[in-house]
């Protein structure tokens, strides 16, 4: 039982880190990133590929995180000066291209066969069940990221982000370089997704392109929206809720007379419905404050 809870918690922790990255972009800055999973994939594959070709794990991880942030920069440059929805369109395409690349460039990624047999941090010296160590590592990192992001968003820099979200003409009129702030938020958010990707690789020990389907992005979206955009605590709670829903529906599967593909489809339908209803009636999320996020409503 405790082993099962630890295993579930690892997934919650990884989604929470992944979603805090999105929350910085969407919740605090109002950037619509529909391709967040692309940065997760870059973090995971870079870490694994570099490690497999002989680089020390920590250098591989850092490179993965930096590369994910760098791709955030590349995506941001053509889109962030323009209207909000261009970022949404370009990121959704970008994440699919990343996935198609991973799937088709077999010389590099082994395509659909995936990658395994890579190192995990301190695996050879941890004297107890490795999942327990991973639990400490992931939740320790979650805590550090949470505190760092909280510090950032409560700094003058973070206040500019929120003012961009509410009405970007105001900070622009005050002489802030709005484009630069947005770019920084997207880069940091993407780098955080990259780190989540490395942890994902450590947890599942075998990565392949199927781990990075577009739906992963929308799990992060429902986590952020449910927990209340611009609230990192809410995001963590959102991750717990969504994972409970996921595990719970798997458990219920034995009692519901539906085929497994129907059950999977139903799960996504519920998530989509929740997204629609929340944005229609409670855009600040279940736990968010109405004063915090107005979205013009």
């Amino acid at each position: 039982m405790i082993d099962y809870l630890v295993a579930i918690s690892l997934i919650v922790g990884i989604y929470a880190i992944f979603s805090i990255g999105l929350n910085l972009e969407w919740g605090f800055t109002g950037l619509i990133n529909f391709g967040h999973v692309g940065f997760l994939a870059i973090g995971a594959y870079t870490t694994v590929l570099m490690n497999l070709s002989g680089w020390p794990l920590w250098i591989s991880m850092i490179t993965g995180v930096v590369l994910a942030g760098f791709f955030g920069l590349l995506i941001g440059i053509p889109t962030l000066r323009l209207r909000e929805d261009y970022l949404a369109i370009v990121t959704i395409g970008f994440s699919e291209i990343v996935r198609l690349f991973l799937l088709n460039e077999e010389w590099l990624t082994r395509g659909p066969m995936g990658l395994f047999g890579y190192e995990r941090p301190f695996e050879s010296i941890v004297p107890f069940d490795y999942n327990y160590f991973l639990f400490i590592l992931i939740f320790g990192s979650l805590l550090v990221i949470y505190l760092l992001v909280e510090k950032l968003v409560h700094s003058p820099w973070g206040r500019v982000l929120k003012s961009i979200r509410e009405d970007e003409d105001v900070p622009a009129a005050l002489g802030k370089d709005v484009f630069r702030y947005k770019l920084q938020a997207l880069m940091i958010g993407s780098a955080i997704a990259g780190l989540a990707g490395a942890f994902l690789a450590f947890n599942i020990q075998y990565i392949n392109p199927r781990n990075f389907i577009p739906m992963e992005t929308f799990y992060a979206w429902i986590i952020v929206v449910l927990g209340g955009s611009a609230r990192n605590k809410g995001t963590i709670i959102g991750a717990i809720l969504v994972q409970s829903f996921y595990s719970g529906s798997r458990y219920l599967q034995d009692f519901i007379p539906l085929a497994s593909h129907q059950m999977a489809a139903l799960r996504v339908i519920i998530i989509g419905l929740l997204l629609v209803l929340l944005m229609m009636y409670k855009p600040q999320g279940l736990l968010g404050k109405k004063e915090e996020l107005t979205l013009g409503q």
Partner: protein
Amino acid sequence: MLQLIVNGIVVGSIIALAAIGLTMVYGVLNFANFSHADFLALGAYIAFVLNTVLGINILLSFFIAIAISGALGVLLDFLIWKPMRKKNADLVSLIIISIGLALIVRNGIIFIWGGSTRNFDLPVQKGIEMLGVTVTHNQFIGIGTAILFMVLVHYFLKRTKMGKAMRAISDDINLARVSGIDVDKVIMWMWFLGIGLAGAAGVLYGLETTIRPNMGWFLILPMFAAVILGGIGNPYGAMVGGMVIGLSQELSMLILPSEYKMGVSLAIMILVLLVKPEGLFKGTKA
């Protein structure tokens, strides 16, 4: 090479047809509707049921599918978009609602019909060979119907009162309102037209390829690329944009593996955003 051009024109005209509705909604309601492509798939499935389960002939199925798709567009306007308009909702919330809707539609299709590919119940007909190029029967129908529909849309927009009203609200919604146009009614018909055309494009695409739940998903990027290339809100721009995207996707196979077709749309879009973000033609929004 010639074969690729023919295929490009077929796919291009289908993208163009679907992009008309996307660009009109984008221009008038000012948001990128991410569910548009999934209504394309839904249209194909509706026609599939009519054609194979109910045994209705494909032409009639095609028109009924357009009507049902259009009606769904109107229904969603009543349920979602109109209340959001009344609330004066921010465009970002509309975008997120539309992606939620996209998930519902696509997975609704999987829930009902499963994930496997389907085909219309049609006799297999031999393609016609000309100048060393094979054009299948369905491709002829696809190009012909798409072009016919585009001409009809042109006449509708230029000659009818409703069409002129649509162009008017697309130019300036407030100006249209004060000059006595019933904006809500026009928007309702715009949804009917837009989603109806998406459904039509879906049936044609299903004829050209196969019917599968994610057939819309893989067209979403080409469609947006067509819309942005043609200038947001400009239906003629979307038609030209669709053709350009369709042709460049197919021609890209000369130098790129076909898996990266989608990347061509992305590259064109990024190029347009960098060089000429307002698109090639005059749009209503920049």
